[in-house]
């Protein structure tokens, strides 16, 4: 049932060409150079250290790796990470 609904939504989105992150629950990741990562639509913090930060998202885990990482701001849906970023990876 749910899968069927998802297919309908996907097809509909393709038809009206809405950006997927607006309608669906997908995370949106924006980086500014290698110093800022701006993450919307996360589902919570799962790991935090100065070298690695992991968030739960609709696609599984989002892993930000780097040095001297600091979460400048964090609330229920958005996060703003600052530091020397080396990698942003999705891990299932």
């Amino acid at each position, binding site marked *: 049932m749910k899968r069927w609904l998802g297919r309908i939504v996907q097809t509909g989105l393709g038809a009206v060409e809405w950006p997927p992150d607006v309608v669906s629950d997908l995370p949106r990741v924006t980086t500014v150079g290698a110093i800022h990562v701006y993450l919307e639509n996360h*589902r*919570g*913090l*799962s*790991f*935090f*250290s*100065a070298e690695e930060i992991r968030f739960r998202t609709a696609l599984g885990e989002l892993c930000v790796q780097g040095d001297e*990482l*600091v*979460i*400048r*701001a*964090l*609330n*229920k849906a*958005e996060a*703003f990470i600052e530091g020397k970023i080396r990698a942003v990876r999705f891990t299932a």
Partner: protein
Amino acid sequence: MMMRRDRWGAYAVIELDASGAPADRFLGEIVSSGIALWNVAVQDGRVRLTVRATDVRRLRRPARAFGVRFRVIKRTGGTFAVLRLLKRPGLIIGFFLFLFMSYMLSNVVWTVEVSGVDGVKAQEAYAAAQKLGLVRGRWAPNLPDLKTLEARFLEQLPWAAWVGVRRDGAIVRIFVVPYKVHESAEPPGPQHLVATKKAVVVDYVVTRGRPLVFRGTLVQPGQLVVSGFVGPPENAKAIAAQGHVYGEVWYDVQVTVPRRQTVVTTEGEKGTQYFLRFGQRRLPVWGFERAPEGARHTSTLRTFTLGGFRLPMALEIVHWQAITEETLELDDAGLLEAALTLAREALRRQGRDVREIRSEKVLQQTVEDDKVLMTIHFGVVEDIARPEPFVPAPEGGSG
């Protein structure tokens, strides 16, 4: 945007006594319960973060549930700044003491100024002020109101037509207007008019009295020209004769004029310079053209005041003007002209009431190589009448 923090809000920096998995789970929990976090960072193995001060209480229950302890390290924001300030009573007491003192000191009479009169009258005004209680150290709100003070000043100073009293903070200004004494108001006693010098009467205007001369009369010094007795001779009345008698008098004026004359002119270059002056130093602002050697400078200083205080800065405006000296060499005709002009000026400069130069005659002129010597005879119309008081004889008489 979520980054924007309300600047005037109150925040608390807290430090968790845990790291690793328990801290992560705790952070995840509080974030999903809707608490916003800032500056989450690992410092010395501990997690440090900023939350809203109002959210600190909401952290206690999840902290206990996850076995995480935290302590508040620092509080920031306007409300905490005020609270911190309130913890230092000296500062606040000092501030209010300052307000109180400045209020008190500005309500004490500090100086009394008298203007409008000087000398003995000013001394009297100061003495009256002292008597009315306007002395240094007097508590100003206790003074009677200014209208009453003005009235009392008028009682104290019988010679004053009007007294204004004004209080500008610690200064009491008293403005006194004395009665104007008209010294000439008293009518003069009986007097004649007599001639001051030998002259031929040209004209006369007699406002009071009986003229005894006519146009063309030759008068000697001291001769009676307007009598102070009026009316029929047997019943004459002594009055103060007044009027003018104009007579032609004669002067011989001798002048010497050098042939070479040095004239100073300011026809050359001129300009204006502006400086900002700080004490002895000055900074050119405008007008960078250099004044030539020997130019004449006139400078005016404009000071600025701000709320009654003179700023230590002033605008100096310098006008300069090049001075050129010209040497004029006069020819014979010009020399004679110059000598005549100089003689006329000398005639008027002697302080006489010269009304008209009737005649001028060159008596003698000697033109030398470097100068001219000239003697000129002038016929000049002057007022020759001078009042002469007299004591009227009981039977009267005529002059």
